[in-house]
Protein backbone atom coordinates (compact mmCIF):
# COMPACT_ATOMS: atom_id res chain seq x y z
CA UNK A 1 0.00 0.00 0.00
CA UNK A 2 1.32 3.40 -0.90
CA UNK A 3 0.88 6.15 1.58
CA UNK A 4 0.96 9.57 0.07
CA UNK A 5 1.69 12.20 2.68
CA UNK A 6 -0.71 15.07 2.64
CA UNK A 7 0.60 18.59 2.70
CA UNK A 8 -1.46 19.24 5.81
CA UNK A 9 0.61 21.11 8.34
CA UNK A 10 0.99 19.77 11.83
CA UNK A 11 0.33 23.20 13.33
CA UNK A 12 -2.52 23.87 15.71
CA UNK A 13 -5.86 23.86 13.95
CA UNK A 14 -7.44 27.25 13.48
CA UNK A 15 -10.37 28.01 15.76
CA UNK A 16 -13.83 28.12 14.18
CA UNK A 17 -17.35 28.73 15.36
CA UNK A 18 -20.31 26.49 14.59
CA UNK A 19 -23.58 28.35 14.14
CA UNK A 20 -26.55 26.01 13.75
CA UNK A 21 -25.49 23.49 11.09
CA UNK A 22 -22.84 25.74 9.56
CA UNK A 23 -19.44 27.35 9.99
CA UNK A 24 -20.23 30.74 8.52
CA UNK A 25 -16.77 32.30 8.61
CA UNK A 26 -13.97 30.93 6.39
CA UNK A 27 -11.25 29.08 8.28
CA UNK A 28 -8.82 31.79 7.20
CA UNK A 29 -6.05 32.05 4.65
CA UNK A 30 -6.59 33.13 1.09
CA UNK A 31 -10.02 32.88 -0.55
CA UNK A 32 -10.89 29.39 -1.72
CA UNK A 33 -9.68 28.57 -5.21
CA UNK A 34 -12.22 26.69 -7.33
CA UNK A 35 -9.71 24.95 -9.61
CA UNK A 36 -7.56 23.79 -6.71
CA UNK A 37 -10.73 22.62 -4.95
CA UNK A 38 -11.73 20.48 -7.90
CA UNK A 39 -8.26 18.95 -8.07
CA UNK A 40 -8.48 18.01 -4.38
CA UNK A 41 -11.96 16.49 -4.77
CA UNK A 42 -10.89 14.17 -7.60
CA UNK A 43 -7.55 13.25 -5.97
CA UNK A 44 -7.87 9.78 -4.45
CA UNK A 45 -4.93 10.26 -2.09
CA UNK A 46 -5.90 13.70 -0.85
CA UNK A 47 -9.60 14.55 -1.02
CA UNK A 48 -10.68 10.90 -1.18
CA UNK A 49 -14.20 12.14 -2.01
CA UNK A 50 -14.75 9.89 -5.03
CA UNK A 51 -13.93 6.77 -3.07
CA UNK A 52 -17.43 7.21 -1.61
CA UNK A 53 -19.23 9.86 -3.67
CA UNK A 54 -20.21 10.13 -7.28
CA UNK A 55 -20.30 13.54 -8.89
CA UNK A 56 -20.32 15.45 -12.16
CA UNK A 57 -16.85 14.22 -13.17
CA UNK A 58 -17.21 12.34 -16.46
CA UNK A 59 -13.40 12.06 -16.72
CA UNK A 60 -13.18 10.12 -13.43
CA UNK A 61 -13.47 6.35 -13.50
CA UNK A 62 -14.41 4.22 -10.49
CA UNK A 63 -16.50 6.55 -8.39
CA UNK A 64 -17.81 5.11 -5.13
CA UNK A 65 -21.37 4.18 -4.26
CA UNK A 66 -21.34 4.81 -0.53
CA UNK A 67 -22.60 8.40 -0.47
CA UNK A 68 -24.96 10.81 -2.29
CA UNK A 69 -23.83 12.52 -5.47
CA UNK A 70 -21.95 15.77 -5.12
CA UNK A 71 -23.88 17.16 -8.10
CA UNK A 72 -26.07 19.99 -6.85
CA UNK A 73 -24.31 20.22 -3.49
CA UNK A 74 -23.82 23.96 -4.09
CA UNK A 75 -27.56 24.40 -4.58
CA UNK A 76 -28.57 22.30 -1.59
CA UNK A 77 -26.19 23.90 0.91
CA UNK A 78 -24.71 27.28 1.72
CA UNK A 79 -20.94 27.68 1.87
CA UNK A 80 -21.18 27.70 5.65
CA UNK A 81 -23.09 24.41 5.68
CA UNK A 82 -20.63 22.84 3.24
CA UNK A 83 -17.75 24.01 5.44
CA UNK A 84 -19.10 22.24 8.54
CA UNK A 85 -19.82 19.09 6.50
CA UNK A 86 -16.19 19.01 5.50
CA UNK A 87 -14.63 20.12 8.75
CA UNK A 88 -16.49 17.63 10.93
CA UNK A 89 -19.50 15.83 9.47
CA UNK A 90 -19.74 13.79 12.65
CA UNK A 91 -21.01 16.91 14.43
CA UNK A 92 -24.17 16.62 12.32
CA UNK A 93 -24.36 12.83 12.17
CA UNK A 94 -22.25 10.94 14.71
CA UNK A 95 -22.82 7.67 12.80
CA UNK A 96 -21.52 9.01 9.47
CA UNK A 97 -18.65 7.35 7.67
CA UNK A 98 -17.60 10.63 6.06
CA UNK A 99 -14.19 11.50 7.53
CA UNK A 100 -13.81 14.73 9.50
CA UNK A 101 -11.40 16.64 7.28
CA UNK A 102 -10.35 19.28 9.77
CA UNK A 103 -10.14 17.60 13.13
CA UNK A 104 -7.37 15.89 15.07
CA UNK A 105 -9.09 15.28 18.42
CA UNK A 106 -10.97 12.18 19.51
CA UNK A 107 -9.30 9.80 17.06
CA UNK A 108 -7.78 6.43 17.99
CA UNK A 109 -4.60 4.70 16.76
CA UNK A 110 -3.87 7.22 14.05
CA UNK A 111 -0.96 6.04 11.88
CA UNK A 112 2.43 7.59 12.65
CA UNK A 113 2.53 9.53 9.38
CA UNK A 114 -0.84 11.15 10.06
CA UNK A 115 -0.70 12.03 13.72
CA UNK A 116 -1.87 15.52 14.70
CA UNK A 117 -2.57 16.35 11.10
CA UNK A 118 -6.00 17.06 9.69
CA UNK A 119 -6.87 15.30 6.43
CA UNK A 120 -6.94 18.70 4.70
CA UNK A 121 -5.42 22.03 5.70
CA UNK A 122 -7.61 25.06 6.38
CA UNK A 123 -6.74 26.43 2.95
CA UNK A 124 -7.59 23.14 1.25
CA UNK A 125 -10.95 23.04 3.03
CA UNK A 126 -11.66 26.53 1.71
CA UNK A 127 -10.65 25.47 -1.81
CA UNK A 128 -13.03 22.50 -1.69
CA UNK A 129 -15.87 24.64 -0.28
CA UNK A 130 -15.36 27.16 -3.11
CA UNK A 131 -15.53 24.37 -5.67
CA UNK A 132 -18.57 22.63 -4.16
CA UNK A 133 -20.41 25.95 -4.16
CA UNK A 134 -20.15 25.95 -7.97
CA UNK A 135 -21.96 22.59 -8.25
CA UNK A 136 -25.45 24.02 -8.74
CA UNK A 137 -26.78 21.56 -11.29
CA UNK A 138 -28.35 18.50 -9.62
CA UNK A 139 -27.47 16.27 -12.60
Amino acid at each position, binding site marked *: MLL*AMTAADADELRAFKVTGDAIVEPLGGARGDVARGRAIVVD*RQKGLCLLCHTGPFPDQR*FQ*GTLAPTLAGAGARWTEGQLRLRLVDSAKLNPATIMPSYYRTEGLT*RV*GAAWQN*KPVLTAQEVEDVVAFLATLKDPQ
Partner: protein
Amino acid sequence: MIRLVAAQRLLVPAAMMCLAAASAVMAQTIDGRRSGFDFMSRDSQQLQRDDTANPGMLAVLDGEGLWNAKAGRANRSCADCHQDASTSMKGVAARYPAFSAALNRPIDLQGRINACRETQQQATPLPWESKELLALSAYVGNQSRGMPIAPPDDARLAPFRQRGEALYTRRVGQLNFSCANCHDDNAGGKLASAVIPQAHPTGYPIYRLEWQGIGSLQRRLRGCFIGVRAEPYAYGAQEYVELELFLMSRAKGMTIETPAVRP
Protein backbone atom coordinates in the same frame (compact mmCIF):
# COMPACT_ATOMS: atom_id res chain seq x y z
CA MET B 1 -4.89 6.64 1.41
CA ILE B 2 -7.60 4.11 1.14
CA ARG B 3 -5.38 2.19 -1.18
CA LEU B 4 -7.58 -0.85 -0.76
CA VAL B 5 -8.24 -0.11 -4.33
CA ALA B 6 -6.02 -1.96 -6.71
CA ALA B 7 -4.81 0.56 -9.23
CA GLN B 8 -3.40 -2.16 -11.36
CA ARG B 9 -4.70 -5.65 -11.19
CA LEU B 10 -2.73 -8.56 -12.53
CA LEU B 11 -4.15 -9.53 -15.84
CA VAL B 12 -4.88 -13.17 -15.94
CA PRO B 13 -3.29 -14.83 -18.93
CA ALA B 14 -5.97 -16.01 -21.30
CA ALA B 15 -4.47 -19.47 -21.44
CA MET B 16 -5.10 -19.92 -17.75
CA MET B 17 -8.72 -18.99 -18.15
CA CYS B 18 -9.74 -21.67 -20.60
CA LEU B 19 -8.96 -24.52 -18.26
CA ALA B 20 -12.12 -26.04 -16.94
CA ALA B 21 -13.37 -25.64 -13.40
CA ALA B 22 -12.04 -28.55 -11.45
CA SER B 23 -12.11 -28.03 -7.74
CA ALA B 24 -14.96 -28.21 -5.30
CA VAL B 25 -15.08 -24.55 -4.39
CA MET B 26 -18.30 -22.91 -5.46
CA ALA B 27 -20.06 -19.70 -4.65
CA GLN B 28 -21.32 -19.90 -1.14
CA THR B 29 -24.24 -17.99 0.26
CA ILE B 30 -25.57 -18.88 3.67
CA ASP B 31 -28.32 -16.84 5.34
CA GLY B 32 -27.18 -13.62 3.71
CA ARG B 33 -23.52 -14.19 4.52
CA ARG B 34 -21.38 -14.21 1.42
CA SER B 35 -17.79 -15.18 0.89
CA GLY B 36 -15.45 -12.69 -0.77
CA PHE B 37 -15.53 -15.21 -3.62
CA ASP B 38 -19.08 -14.08 -4.49
CA PHE B 39 -17.98 -10.46 -4.84
CA MET B 40 -15.23 -11.26 -7.36
CA SER B 41 -15.27 -11.09 -11.13
CA ARG B 42 -15.98 -14.32 -12.99
CA ASP B 43 -12.37 -14.40 -14.15
CA SER B 44 -11.04 -14.36 -10.61
CA GLN B 45 -13.59 -16.95 -9.53
CA GLN B 46 -12.49 -19.17 -12.37
CA LEU B 47 -8.86 -18.72 -11.38
CA GLN B 48 -9.64 -19.87 -7.84
CA ARG B 49 -11.73 -22.83 -8.96
CA ASP B 50 -9.12 -24.31 -11.21
CA ASP B 51 -6.28 -25.92 -9.25
CA THR B 52 -4.04 -25.98 -12.29
CA ALA B 53 -4.40 -22.20 -12.69
CA ASN B 54 -4.80 -21.01 -9.08
CA PRO B 55 -1.39 -19.51 -8.19
CA GLY B 56 -2.08 -20.27 -4.52
CA MET B 57 -1.68 -23.95 -5.34
CA LEU B 58 2.04 -23.36 -5.84
CA ALA B 59 2.28 -22.48 -2.16
CA VAL B 60 0.33 -25.62 -1.29
CA LEU B 61 2.84 -27.69 -3.28
CA ASP B 62 5.76 -25.95 -1.58
CA GLY B 63 4.08 -26.69 1.73
CA GLU B 64 3.83 -30.35 0.90
CA GLY B 65 7.57 -30.39 0.28
CA LEU B 66 8.25 -28.74 3.63
CA TRP B 67 5.83 -31.11 5.37
CA ASN B 68 8.02 -34.01 4.31
CA ALA B 69 11.40 -32.36 4.93
CA LYS B 70 13.35 -33.09 8.08
CA ALA B 71 14.26 -30.00 10.07
CA GLY B 72 15.76 -28.77 13.32
CA ARG B 73 17.92 -30.41 15.92
CA ALA B 74 15.30 -33.15 16.27
CA ASN B 75 15.83 -33.86 12.56
CA ARG B 76 12.19 -34.74 12.13
CA SER B 77 9.66 -33.79 9.51
CA CYS B 78 6.06 -32.84 10.15
CA ALA B 79 5.16 -36.09 8.42
CA ASP B 80 7.31 -38.13 10.84
CA CYS B 81 4.86 -37.24 13.60
CA HIS B 82 1.64 -36.36 11.79
CA GLN B 83 1.93 -38.84 8.89
CA ASP B 84 -0.56 -38.23 6.11
CA ALA B 85 -1.76 -34.63 6.29
CA SER B 86 -4.93 -35.44 4.38
CA THR B 87 -6.01 -37.40 7.45
CA SER B 88 -4.21 -35.77 10.37
CA MET B 89 -4.74 -32.14 9.29
CA LYS B 90 -8.26 -32.51 7.91
CA GLY B 91 -10.53 -29.98 9.63
CA VAL B 92 -7.73 -28.42 11.68
CA ALA B 93 -7.76 -25.04 9.90
CA ALA B 94 -11.55 -24.93 10.26
CA ARG B 95 -11.26 -24.74 14.03
CA TYR B 96 -8.38 -22.33 14.51
CA PRO B 97 -7.53 -20.06 16.32
CA ALA B 98 -7.56 -22.48 19.26
CA PHE B 99 -6.57 -22.17 22.89
CA SER B 100 -2.99 -23.16 23.68
CA ALA B 101 -2.72 -24.51 27.20
CA ALA B 102 1.06 -24.15 27.03
CA LEU B 103 0.87 -20.43 26.25
CA ASN B 104 -2.39 -19.83 28.14
CA ARG B 105 -3.81 -17.86 25.22
CA PRO B 106 -5.29 -18.52 21.79
CA ILE B 107 -2.97 -19.05 18.83
CA ASP B 108 -3.70 -19.02 15.14
CA LEU B 109 -2.73 -21.77 12.72
CA GLN B 110 0.57 -20.10 11.86
CA GLY B 111 1.37 -19.82 15.56
CA ARG B 112 0.54 -23.50 16.02
CA ILE B 113 2.80 -24.55 13.14
CA ASN B 114 5.63 -22.47 14.56
CA ALA B 115 5.06 -23.98 18.00
CA CYS B 116 5.71 -27.41 16.48
CA ARG B 117 8.79 -26.10 14.75
CA GLU B 118 10.18 -24.76 17.98
CA THR B 119 9.26 -27.45 20.48
CA GLN B 120 8.92 -30.56 18.32
CA GLN B 121 11.50 -30.02 15.59
CA GLN B 122 13.72 -27.80 17.76
CA ALA B 123 14.16 -25.44 14.85
CA THR B 124 14.01 -21.65 14.79
CA PRO B 125 10.46 -20.39 14.24
CA LEU B 126 9.69 -19.27 10.70
CA PRO B 127 9.35 -15.48 10.30
CA TRP B 128 5.85 -14.10 9.88
CA GLU B 129 4.85 -13.81 6.24
CA SER B 130 7.88 -15.88 5.17
CA LYS B 131 7.42 -18.03 2.11
CA GLU B 132 7.87 -21.17 4.23
CA LEU B 133 5.31 -20.30 6.88
CA LEU B 134 2.77 -19.28 4.24
CA ALA B 135 3.44 -22.49 2.32
CA LEU B 136 2.96 -24.72 5.38
CA SER B 137 -0.20 -22.78 6.33
CA ALA B 138 -1.53 -23.11 2.80
CA TYR B 139 -0.81 -26.85 2.81
CA VAL B 140 -2.40 -27.46 6.20
CA GLY B 141 -5.30 -25.10 5.35
CA ASN B 142 -5.92 -26.84 2.05
CA GLN B 143 -6.62 -30.11 3.90
CA SER B 144 -9.81 -28.46 5.23
CA ARG B 145 -10.98 -27.12 1.89
CA GLY B 146 -14.70 -27.71 1.49
CA MET B 147 -15.27 -28.15 5.22
CA PRO B 148 -17.44 -25.84 7.31
CA ILE B 149 -15.76 -23.36 9.63
CA ALA B 150 -16.23 -24.83 13.12
CA PRO B 151 -14.89 -22.63 15.93
CA PRO B 152 -14.18 -24.71 19.04
CA ASP B 153 -16.72 -24.58 21.81
CA ASP B 154 -14.11 -23.61 24.39
CA ALA B 155 -15.05 -21.18 27.16
CA ARG B 156 -11.42 -20.07 27.52
CA LEU B 157 -11.67 -18.44 24.08
CA ALA B 158 -14.71 -16.32 24.93
CA PRO B 159 -12.98 -13.27 26.46
CA PHE B 160 -10.51 -13.13 23.55
CA ARG B 161 -13.31 -13.38 21.00
CA GLN B 162 -15.12 -10.54 22.78
CA ARG B 163 -12.00 -8.43 22.52
CA GLY B 164 -11.91 -9.22 18.82
CA GLU B 165 -15.49 -8.02 18.48
CA ALA B 166 -14.62 -4.80 20.33
CA LEU B 167 -11.71 -4.25 17.92
CA TYR B 168 -14.06 -4.89 15.01
CA THR B 169 -16.49 -2.19 16.08
CA ARG B 170 -13.97 0.41 17.29
CA ARG B 171 -13.29 3.34 15.01
CA VAL B 172 -9.59 3.89 14.27
CA GLY B 173 -7.24 5.92 12.13
CA GLN B 174 -7.21 9.44 10.78
CA LEU B 175 -10.21 8.48 8.64
CA ASN B 176 -11.98 7.12 11.74
CA PHE B 177 -13.49 3.85 10.52
CA SER B 178 -14.43 0.66 12.29
CA CYS B 179 -14.31 -2.63 10.42
CA ALA B 180 -18.09 -2.78 10.84
CA ASN B 181 -18.54 0.61 9.12
CA CYS B 182 -17.34 -1.01 5.92
CA HIS B 183 -17.90 -4.74 6.23
CA ASP B 184 -21.32 -4.73 7.96
CA ASP B 185 -22.89 -1.39 7.05
CA ASN B 186 -21.53 -0.99 3.51
CA ALA B 187 -20.78 -4.51 2.28
CA GLY B 188 -21.59 -4.82 -1.39
CA GLY B 189 -21.02 -1.09 -1.89
CA LYS B 190 -18.17 0.26 -3.93
CA LEU B 191 -15.23 2.06 -2.44
CA ALA B 192 -14.03 3.54 -5.71
CA SER B 193 -13.44 0.38 -7.80
CA ALA B 194 -13.29 -2.12 -4.92
CA VAL B 195 -16.43 -3.95 -3.90
CA ILE B 196 -16.49 -4.14 -0.10
CA PRO B 197 -16.80 -7.79 0.93
CA GLN B 198 -18.25 -9.03 4.23
CA ALA B 199 -14.81 -9.90 5.63
CA HIS B 200 -15.23 -13.65 6.06
CA PRO B 201 -11.79 -15.28 6.48
CA THR B 202 -12.69 -18.33 4.43
CA GLY B 203 -9.65 -18.66 2.19
CA TYR B 204 -6.42 -17.85 4.04
CA PRO B 205 -3.67 -17.73 3.17
CA ILE B 206 -4.92 -16.19 -0.09
CA TYR B 207 -3.33 -15.43 -3.41
CA ARG B 208 -4.10 -11.74 -3.85
CA LEU B 209 -3.86 -10.29 -7.34
CA GLU B 210 -2.90 -6.88 -5.95
CA TRP B 211 0.00 -8.45 -4.03
CA GLN B 212 0.87 -10.75 -6.89
CA GLY B 213 1.62 -13.24 -4.20
CA ILE B 214 0.32 -15.26 -1.31
CA GLY B 215 -0.35 -13.61 2.04
CA SER B 216 -1.87 -14.25 5.44
CA LEU B 217 -5.00 -12.91 7.06
CA GLN B 218 -2.73 -10.71 9.17
CA ARG B 219 -1.38 -9.09 6.03
CA ARG B 220 -4.93 -8.54 4.77
CA LEU B 221 -5.96 -6.95 8.09
CA ARG B 222 -2.88 -4.73 8.11
CA GLY B 223 -3.98 -3.47 4.71
CA CYS B 224 -7.39 -2.52 6.08
CA PHE B 225 -5.78 -0.67 9.03
CA ILE B 226 -3.39 1.19 6.75
CA GLY B 227 -6.25 2.02 4.39
CA VAL B 228 -7.99 4.07 7.06
CA ARG B 229 -4.66 5.59 8.10
CA ALA B 230 -4.50 3.68 11.36
CA GLU B 231 -1.29 2.28 12.82
CA PRO B 232 -1.34 -1.45 12.00
CA TYR B 233 -0.39 -3.88 14.75
CA ALA B 234 2.91 -5.69 14.29
CA TYR B 235 2.82 -9.15 12.72
CA GLY B 236 2.11 -11.75 15.36
CA ALA B 237 0.24 -9.31 17.62
CA GLN B 238 -2.44 -10.82 19.82
CA GLU B 239 -4.98 -8.36 18.37
CA TYR B 240 -4.90 -10.21 15.04
CA VAL B 241 -5.64 -13.52 16.76
CA GLU B 242 -8.52 -11.86 18.63
CA LEU B 243 -9.91 -10.36 15.43
CA GLU B 244 -9.59 -13.72 13.69
CA LEU B 245 -11.43 -15.46 16.54
CA PHE B 246 -14.30 -13.03 16.10
CA LEU B 247 -14.27 -13.25 12.29
CA MET B 248 -14.24 -17.06 12.39
CA SER B 249 -17.22 -17.15 14.78
CA ARG B 250 -19.04 -14.75 12.44
CA ALA B 251 -18.24 -17.09 9.54
CA LYS B 252 -19.19 -20.27 11.40
CA GLY B 253 -20.55 -22.86 8.96
CA MET B 254 -19.14 -21.17 5.86
CA THR B 255 -16.83 -23.25 3.70
CA ILE B 256 -13.02 -23.18 3.82
CA GLU B 257 -11.60 -22.25 0.39
CA THR B 258 -7.84 -22.25 1.05
CA PRO B 259 -6.04 -21.19 -1.07
CA ALA B 260 -8.56 -18.55 -2.19
CA VAL B 261 -7.87 -15.95 -4.87
CA ARG B 262 -8.84 -12.36 -4.10
CA PRO B 263 -8.54 -9.06 -5.98
